């Protein structure tokens, strides 16, 4: 039995003539945190979106808990894979509480009382219990992103995907969201994090994958990637961002 939570095998994605992913394979062990780093346009976000099939791959296999889900029903796959977006994507016409209750009721078919209980619990976990009756627009960016994380967690996913979750935040709000994510990693959740926060990757990741031009150029422990980079492209990238 495999202990890998998510596994991508030889994924290819093209947009027209542009090859965004050119044969990418990545295995994420259960209970670990994998950070994907790399320059803009390297295909990091696309790779993440393939994992829950928001982007269907042209070829390659997607495995979840060892089982091939490349052609399975995408809705049931996505219930098992939570995703947090750069721009939060909370539902602006519903209150913070309703943002979490809605998918619980619609997707997991929970009764209203149960859904509300879970939603309040998850909001409390991210420190925003008192924001339940607000509309998202009344919250700061950092608070909105924490609500988005609570919304994804409420679905009890086997793995959480973070797509540049702090890139749209004001600098002073980044830390709170990163702390929350680090806390999830510590609790043993399986995380795949596309990020520009090298400090976070070094501190929290079990594995770091460096992507450039549609391929994973190098992957390894944070130590191996940040202190012992081998490929010239990674050395160059690190010299620019560190």
């Amino acid at each position, binding site marked *: 039995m495999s202990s890998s939570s998510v596994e991508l095998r030889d994924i290819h994605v093209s947009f027209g003539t542009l090859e965004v992913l050119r044969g990418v394979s990545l295995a994420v062990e259960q209970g670990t945190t994998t950070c994907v780093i790399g320059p803009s346009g390297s295909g990091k976000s696309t790779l993440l979106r393939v994992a*829950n099939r*928001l982007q269907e791959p042209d070829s390659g296999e997607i495995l979840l808990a060892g089982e091939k889900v490349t052609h399975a029903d*995408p*809705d*049931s796959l*996505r*219930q098992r*894979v*939570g*995703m947090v*977006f750069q*721009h939060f*994507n*909370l*539902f*602006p*016409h519903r209150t913070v509480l309703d943002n979490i209750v*809605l*998918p619980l009721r*619609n*997707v997991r078919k929970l009764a209203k009382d149960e859904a509300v209980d879970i939603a309040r619990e998850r909001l409390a976990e991210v420190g925003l219990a008192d924001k339940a*009756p*607000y*509309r998202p*627009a*009344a919250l700061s960016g950092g608070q909105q992103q924490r609500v*988005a994380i609570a*919304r*994804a967690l409420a*679905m009890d996913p086997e793995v959480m995907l973070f797509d540049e979750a702090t890139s749209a935040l004001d600098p002073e709000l980044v830390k709170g969201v990163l702390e929350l994510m680090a806390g999830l990693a510590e609790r043993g959740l399986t995380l795949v994090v596309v990020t520009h926060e090298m400090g976070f990757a070094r501190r929290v990741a079990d594995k770091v994958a460096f992507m450039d031009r549609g391929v994973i150029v190098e992957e390894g422990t944070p130590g191996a990637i940040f202190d012992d980079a081998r490929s010239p492209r990674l050395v160059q990238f690190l010299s620019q961002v560190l």
Partner: protein
Amino acid sequence: MDQFLDTFLNWEYIWQVFPDLLKTGLLNTLILAGVSAVIGTVLGMILAVMGLSAKRWLRWPARIYTDIFRGLPAILTILVIGQGLGTVARDVVGTNPYPLGILALSLIAAAYIGEIFRAGIQSVEKGQLEASRALGMSYRSAMVLVVIPQGVRRVLPALVNQFISLVKDSSLVYFLGLLASQRELFRIGQDLAANTGNLSPLVAAGFVYLVITVPLTHLVNYIDKRLRVGKKVSPDEELDLVASGKVQS
């Protein structure tokens, strides 16, 4: 000046036409416009969703329908449907011009309202659909619960404008020939104007139209302003928040 007043504001004729305007005309105008608005809104939503579909066999019929009904003069559509269907499909639809007039108005309104809804739904950020789908919601659930409510809210002013047009366009069923009890505002004003050779009854009918349409116009402005300013929390919540010092009013 006297002649001007007598032609447009002859109180005797206005007094004479007003009971009919209010009892028969107003009611029929509101029925014609109201029922068409409801049917047109339902059909318009169906057209909008079809027009946004990824499937060509759904998109094309919606496109063709919209092009035809938006491209024809309303009066032509009303006559063709009102008289044509009454003649050709008498057994199915009957020959009563009144429901046929409503049908024609509805079909025209659906084309415009469909475009309004489509624009609104399309203006909702793609991330909303993606976030819904990423949570495991089906396309249908995501559209119905997340995307469409936001899209509709954004085009409410345009929608009310369309209702105003419907109130005015309902006068066109006049050409179908209606029973005395089916006459709407314009027809009632027009009938007495023709009998008396005086325009005052039409002025009176115009006044009643304005009583309907001007408040609607202001409703548009009100909604528009509310949407522009943005409503972050409900008024009750806002009061609570202000009272508890969590936000500045």
